[in-house]
């Protein structure tokens, strides 16, 4: 699957000018509100006609302003999961799902409605009216409805933004399952980095209508020069790990390429491949192995690069085996330690800094 987007669109306040390609797996469109994420999503689905440009999906031209091609929304076969679900209120859950299935193309095997319902945990909701569903249930039904029309591409436009924190954490495992089922490529629009770090393979970083960066999620998130764009409090690398076991004290041991991490997090099976997001602000750097310290995680590392922003902080990339960790420290400290690329040091992480929501099931291709 290849989606190519090259569009320009004049908008109130700014001009959108976006060019990128998306492949298999989950591609996140990331940026603050007003960056143009949802506008791009609407242009791909056909709900918005850009001023100028070209959009293709698997070599089929969906939109081309030069030749005047614009495939109507209902012929694009691009599923959309909206922030507000948009279930049809006059139909019950089963009716909403049937609406999706009704327009699925005839050729090829029909999607297994029961398997999709099971994957999203909505089997018991079939006779419910949409007004009686919780926000999370609505979103799961909306996803199933979109999948049943056998989309060539699934766009999820801030699907969790309307849910509160615990509900988000409830629904994320379903999205991981959907991603790992691998049936349909996904464009995932979000301003929440925690979701992107857990779900996406690639990401497109947007700011004020412009594409700032396109790349692998692990690569983009561990790049110190991206910290100002991502936000100093949100920045943090994503590491691939495997669950090694549980300590007597209840901490889960995760094997990473550069050693072992001990983090809180119950209910993960031994041997399970996970991805874990470690916020840059939760990582300390020491030149010597510290002693008499409460931290459970002290790992040898090598400084790979530094990025000084406008503020008092410095983002430091640390090589940890095959993985890269990001630390954010003050410029003073960086000067005092004389941090420079190639310097050996120790990365220190407070175990409790890693929230359970920051540990997710690893997806396709180990990432």
């Amino acid at each position: 699957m290849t989606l190519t987007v090259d569009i320009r669109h004049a908008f109130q306040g700014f001009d959108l000018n976006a060019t990128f390609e998306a492949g298999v797996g989950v591609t996140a469109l990331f940026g603050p509100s007003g960056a143009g994420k949802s506008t791009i999503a609407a242009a791909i689905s056909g709900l918005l006609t850009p001023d100028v440009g070209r959009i293709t999906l698997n070599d089929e031209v969906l939109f081309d302003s030069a030749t005047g091609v614009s495939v109507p929304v209902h012929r694009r076969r691009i599923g959309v999961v909206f922030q507000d679900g948009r279930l049809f209120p006059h139909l019950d859950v089963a009716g909403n799902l049937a609406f999706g299935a009704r327009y699925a193309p005839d050729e090829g095997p029909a999607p297994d409605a029961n398997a999709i319902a099971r994957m999203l945990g909505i089997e018991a909701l079939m006779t419910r009216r949409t007004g009686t569903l919780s926000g999370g249930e609505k979103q799961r039904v909306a996803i199933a409805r979109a999948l049943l029309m056998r989309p060539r591409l699934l766009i999820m436009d801030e699907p969790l933004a309307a849910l509160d924190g615990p509900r988000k954490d409830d629904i994320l495992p379903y999205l991981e399952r959907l991603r790992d089922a691998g049936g349909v490529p996904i464009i995932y629009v979000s301003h929440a980095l925690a979701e992107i770090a857990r779900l996406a393979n690639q990401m497109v970083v947007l700011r004020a209508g412009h594409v700032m960066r396109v790349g692998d999620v692990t690569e983009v998130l561990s790049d110190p020069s991206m910290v100002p764009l991502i936000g100093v409090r949100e920045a943090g690398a994503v590491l691939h790990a495997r669950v090694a076991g549980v300590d007597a004290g209840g901490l889960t041991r995760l094997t990473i390429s550069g050693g072992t991490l001990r983090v809180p997090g119950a209910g993960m099976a031994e041997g399970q491949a996970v991805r874990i997001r470690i916020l840059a602000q939760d990582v300390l750097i020491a030149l010597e192995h510290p002693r008499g310290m409460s931290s459970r995680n002290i790992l040898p590392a090598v400084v790979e690069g530094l990025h000084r922003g406008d503020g008092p902080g410095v983002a430091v990339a640390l090589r940890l085996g095959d993985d890269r960790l990001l630390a954010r420290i003050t410029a003073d400290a960086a000067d005092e330690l004389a941090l420079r690329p190639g310097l050996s040091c120790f990365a220190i992480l407070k175990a409790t800094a890693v929230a359970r929501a920051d540990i997710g099931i690893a997806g396709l291709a180990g990432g």
Partner: protein
Amino acid sequence: MLEPAEWAALLLSLKVSSVAVICALPPAIAVAWLLARRRFWGHGALSALVHLPLVLPPVVTGYLLLLTFGRNGAVGSFLAEMGIVLAFRWTGAALAAGIMGFPLMVRAIRLSIEAVDPKLEEAAATLGAGRWAGFCRVTLPLIAPGILAGAVLGFAKAMGEFGATITFVANIPGQTQTLPSAIYAFLQVPGGDASALRLVVLATVVALGAVLISEWLARKVAARVGGI
């Protein structure tokens, strides 16, 4: 209980009103949809035109109908060549009743369309439903109670329509004498009071029932749109 002339008036009114509502409903839905969902040049003018029968003296509407659809009228002479005569026939009464009820029908249906989130129609399109399919499968079922409410109101208005009807099709017993025309006629003759009173009670019951039913249906729209 009712005398033959009274029965004839009641049955004629029911026939005229039913035909008027059935014929006016499709254009009323179309106009309501245009007014609710589209912004175009002449939007305000169309809205005003639709509401005109509501504020114009009914006798003026009747006279305009006579001018247009009478045997010598622009449209009437054309229709007469095809063998369709409206003036002084029950079909003309249905036309007058339909036009007088049209604004009420459009209003009720327009309100129910405006209560439907257009984003639902977008969602239907992303699922593969074309514009017409989306309208039939999403919008139409959601506004069904609103359409019924409009039909009931239009029917009640048609049952009570007098001024335009008597001007356009006169008051011919058995042919164009509807319920209100009959009441008027009974009041003109000595000893007709009892007949008039019976028809007045009948007309009141029909009108009251129609308004109550349409209110109830309008509430159904809200519940339906809310998915309860």
